[in-house]
């Protein structure tokens, strides 16, 4: 297989799929790798749904470790058979000038499942820098499952998004109500501009009398400025148990001089042993 990551995918499918389906996939992979017209790729990418179903791969720990070793941050724990077969076909595309335009053409006419498979597979593909614009386009969707294919358990955004699109993706995750914890690189890519956007968003929600996700404070803590510290103090004073625990966790990551002082005023929160994953 031309793309070494396809080997891993095929291995997982081989352990789970029937022989006929696997033989079909190998044949189509070969044809596409040998430069078949793009219509062959498009048709078979769709037709994979007739050979592979939506059974989850349910990968074990060692398979997940292998994934992370192949592409750091890649966590295919939610991948399904059909998406995996489609990813194999994507990996078969020859690595030439036509590569990125073919991906664009595919996604311009893709159904929901096809979009999910392609966006999930982004970190496995060659020419990542030529796919960044398409990935950003994907984060503009309002179809939550498609958004999650990029935002969750996928290192592509961490590795290739500049700060502005990264920040938009994190804010949009809150906006559409999907958890932040599965975003790969959430802590390492936290930044001051995102901190400001998130605090402004919290104020909007408060003004409307609506709930603020406790996860929001995770990306605020490390870069909290004076205003953000005041916001966190407000949460400690007025929030529910979840919000207060989250604010305490955020303050623990803050180098701001008032952070420790605030925490010391709320000794009841010192023993909070929750991690950010508990809020997702």
């Amino acid at each position, binding site marked *: 297989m031309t793309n070494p990551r396809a080997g891993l995918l095929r291995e997982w499918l081989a352990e789970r799929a029937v022989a006929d389906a696997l033989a079909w996939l190998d044949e189509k992979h070969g044809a596409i790798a040998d430069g078949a017209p793009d219509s062959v790729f498009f048709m078979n990418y769709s*037709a994979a749904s007739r050979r592979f179903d939506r059974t989850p791969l349910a990968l074990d720990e060692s398979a997940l470790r292998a994934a992370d070793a192949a592409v750091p941050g890649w966590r295919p724990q939610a991948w399904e058979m059909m998406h995996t077969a489609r990813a194999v076909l994507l990996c078969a595309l020859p690595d030439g000038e036509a590569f990125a335009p073919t991906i664009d053409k595919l996604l311009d006419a893709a*159904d929901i499942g096809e979009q*999910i498979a392609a966006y999930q597979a982004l970190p496995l593909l060659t020419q990542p820098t030529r796919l960044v614009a398409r990935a950003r386009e994907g984060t503009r969707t*309002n179809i939550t499952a498609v958004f*999650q294919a990029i935002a969750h358990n996928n290192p592509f955004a961490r590795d290739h998004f500049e700060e502005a699109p990264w920040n938009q993706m994190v804010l949009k995750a809150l906006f559409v109500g*999907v958890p932040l914890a599965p975003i790969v690189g959430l802590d390492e890519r936290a930044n001051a501009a995102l901190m400001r956007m998130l605090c402004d968003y919290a104020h909007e929600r408060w003004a409307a009398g609506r709930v603020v996700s406790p996860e929001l404070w995770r990306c605020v803590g490390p870069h909290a400025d004076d205003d953000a510290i005041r916001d966190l103090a407000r949460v400690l004073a007025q929030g529910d148990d979840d919000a207060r625990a989250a604010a305490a966790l955020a303050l623990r990551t803050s180098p701001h001089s008032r952070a420790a002082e605030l925490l010391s005023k709320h000794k009841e929160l010192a023993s909070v042993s929750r991690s950010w994953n508990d809020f997702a």
Partner: protein
Amino acid sequence: MYLDPHVHAVSRTTDDYQAMAAAGVVAIIEPAFWLGQPRTNVGSFQDYFSMLVGWERFRASQFGIRHYCAIGLNSKEANNEALAEEVIDLLPRYLAKEGVVAVGEIGYDDMSALEEKYFRIQLDLAKEVDLPVMIHTPHRNKKEGTSRSMSVCEEHGLAPGTVVVDHNNEETVKEVLDRGFWAAFTIYPHTKMGSERMVEIVKQYGPERIIVDSAADWGVSDPLAVPKTAALMKARGLSDEAISKVTYQNALDAYGQSGQIRAGDWLDAAAVDPTEKFEGSGVLRGGQPPQVGKLGNTPMPDPGSDNLIV
């Protein structure tokens, strides 16, 4: 539990989806049609087809309604030959997609030569991809158009049992049933067919191979036509079995031949399409209960609650 096998949902509001779900409509089929005015380029068709397999599917799912579609070049726009050629080239890419249950709606409008040409091409395509066909019979010269539609299907070797002939009335139904095709009826408040007339037809012909739909679109039409007709049938003394056949089971049997629509899609909560994630992290949030599999009496999503993305 109802299946409305002909709804142009892209032209309906979320209020309609809510009302349909509340009335027990569990699934709809949206056949590709025109937009009320002719398209001028193939990109408009591509975006429309993509919407049928993408955004509209998602939008319906947020109300607990399963959305399927039929893909085809409608008869009206078949009269623009240059454009029709491009659309025909585009069709194979969409016909192989999940949830595409038929080639449709296709057939005649003016019964022009170009309509006939692209009707025939699409019948061959349906055979090639092994999908049922949804026929739109013309509003004018209906009787002859219906008869000819069936003859052309036979000429192309399609089994009548794989073809649904839609927009029937008292004048066409007998021949359609006699020739072995499925006979669908569009219930429109003012034109085509009313619920009272529909009851009489089922009384006269029985429930076999008869299908009721709303064809709700951007005109005066009623997305609740199927449940309302079922209620009238009940009041007029038709059996529950007969009502279920014409408002649910027959459509499922006809389009189920595609392999792309199964009762399990909405009956079996465990079989719910995980990519649409009805539960947990996807469509429904904030502790909102899943809508699928609990029919008719579920609390509907509150559009003011920010749980919906529309």
